[in-house]
């Protein structure tokens, strides 16, 4: 066996390199670099990210670079089927659907992003105040939330829309007044969890200042919760807007949100299905991509929860 190759000369002491004593299978990286690495490993999430980027770019630039306007009727080209002149065809007023779709996409995305930002602002503030103050303040704020979660948010949104004139601003406001509750609860729970967690205790024992704790421990952990939640808020806002416009109480013609376009297409679905199919595909694509990206981000940012 091996013994044959063993030479007597090998029986002398050697000094072992200190570094060889530690065996770490993975190099140390920061939390965010680690998350980014994991996200890139997730092929579906990367694809979703690229598709979303393409959709955003098209929403911004497609209407700019088209020779058609999204609202000018052209009665010579009513219900044109998709062809070279009109990539997605035209609607009952001869308006180019390619431009209208990306215009609608632009409005839907804008509503969703602004609503999400307002959510973050109100939700994070509410949750943080509730968790950090604690005691009676927390108790009262939680009672308020408990009452609010009992109300189906759609009802609040609908009532809000009845009270104010329909428009982009109203929809954003309506989505915002219901959306923050979830964010506030998550942020509060996260902060409470972190407040009592051992590593925060450890850094306090080690003499780190509270500012240091907040910056190094609380913020990165809270940020992942917020990012993940936003990934689910945006598609749900896009859905709600489209839903309201579809049942006829959200935006209306001549504005062009995805919901308005689908509603408009649905009216003529029987004879001109292309009018509805294209905006429907875009909204489904956006929702699917956000869903996949959200899952990917959750797995990447919170490896304990991933499978």
């Amino acid at each position, binding site marked *: 066996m091996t013994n044959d190759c063993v030479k007597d000369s090998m*029986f*002398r002491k050697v000094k072992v390199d200190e570094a060889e004593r530690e065996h*770490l299978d993975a190099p140390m990286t920061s939390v965010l670099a680690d998350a980014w690495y994991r996200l890139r490993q997730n092929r579906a999430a990367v694809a979703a990210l690229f598709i979303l980027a393409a959709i955003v770019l098209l929403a911004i630039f497609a209407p700019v670079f088209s020779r058609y306007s999204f609202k000018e009727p052209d009665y010579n080209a009513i219900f044109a089927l998709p062809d070279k002149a009109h990539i997605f065809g035209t609607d009952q007023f001869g308006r180019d659907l390619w431009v209208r779709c990306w215009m609608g996409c632009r409005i839907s995305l804008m509503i969703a992003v602004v609503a999400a930002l307002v959510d973050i602002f109100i939700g994070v503030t509410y949750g943080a105040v509730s968790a950090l103050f604690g005691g009676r303040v927390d108790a009262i704020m939680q009672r308020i939330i408990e009452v609010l979660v009992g109300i189906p948010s759609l009802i609040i949104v609908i009532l809000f829309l009845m009270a104010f004139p329909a428009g982009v601003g109203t929809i954003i406001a309506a989505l915002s007044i219901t959306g923050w509750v979830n964010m506030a609860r998550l942020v509060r729970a996260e902060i409470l969890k972190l407040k009592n967690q051992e590593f925060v205790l450890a850094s306090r024992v080690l003499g780190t200042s509270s500012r240091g704790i907040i910056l190094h421990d609380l913020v990165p952990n809270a940020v992942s919760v917020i990012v993940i939640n936003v990934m689910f808020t945006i598609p749900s806002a896009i859905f709600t807007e489209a839903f309201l416009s579809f049942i006829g109480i959200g935006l209306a013609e001549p504005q062009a949100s995805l919901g308005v376009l689908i509603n408009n297409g649905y009216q003529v679905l029987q004879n001109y299905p292309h009018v509805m199919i294209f905006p429907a595909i875009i909204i489904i694509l956006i929702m699917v991509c956000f869903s996949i990206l959200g899952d990917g981000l959750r797995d990447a940012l919170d490896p304990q929860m991933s499978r």
Partner: protein
Amino acid sequence: MENVLEVKNLVVDIRTQKGIIHAVRDVSFSLRQGETLAVVGESGCGKSMTMKAVMQILPKNARITDGQVLFHGKDLSKYSDRRMEKLRGSDISMIFQDPMTSLNPTMKIGKQIEEVLKLHRKEMTPDERRKRVVELLDLVGISNPETRYGQYPHQLSGGQRQRVDIAMALACDPDVLIADEPTTALDVTIQAQILDLMRELQKKVRTSIIIITHNLGVVANIADRVAVMYGGKIVETGDVRDIFYSPAHEYTKALLDSIPGAGDKERLHPIPGTPPGLMKPPAGCPFAARCRQTMEVCEKFMPDFYDQGTAHRAACWMLDPRAKEA
């Protein structure tokens, strides 16, 4: 005495996304009727994987790639799933490290013990089974067994749950009981109680026990023989006295030095460094990088076993006659 269980040249590989982990590398040991064998080693040295391989309950990505597991002379690694199921829990049973998670939280503990009887003692009537479960609970020292029968795991303390685990494992009088760190998750006082219980039960039912642990106190308390594992390999085996009073392998020596002895006023001597990664295990002795006596040969070649007595063997180049000359 007859060998109940004999493991020969066992190799277990785990496939992961980053590569293959050679968790168990050429492990051999035997277990005689009625004896208690302690397998000692740091976490990640492959001791749990070895036992899971014996039970054939390896995780999906792990596989026995070589070697034999002989139970009464029959190779279990060749057994079908069906035959293995008949054996598990009845002839070989196992208890686990963490009693807080090893019981099903939504099932009454009586039912969980009864499940074993239902599977392996089909001739028993429901009444007999119930009686047997109460008997078992009583045997492992659980008070009010009749009431406990209908309770859920969360209503019991950690020590009590470990007793339930033991009752479950002993329900069918197994030939071999494998205990994977049975006391690690428990309070020190409870640890002693559980060890006492296992010793007592072994006298009563003559089961052979393999106990996995990293706690040398547990070894001294309960074991007849000891196998020391390091880096996926067994590096030394011997009677408990041999290991404690005349350790031969440098790792065993370092391990013994690292525990506080009674009345020992000297400082502790922790072993510097960490165990080797088993993705790319070292070619030579796995302990070479942390050893106090490392020689050139240690880094290049894996030593064979050197007999140190009737049943005492160690795989260390320091035991080679040539090492003494140098």
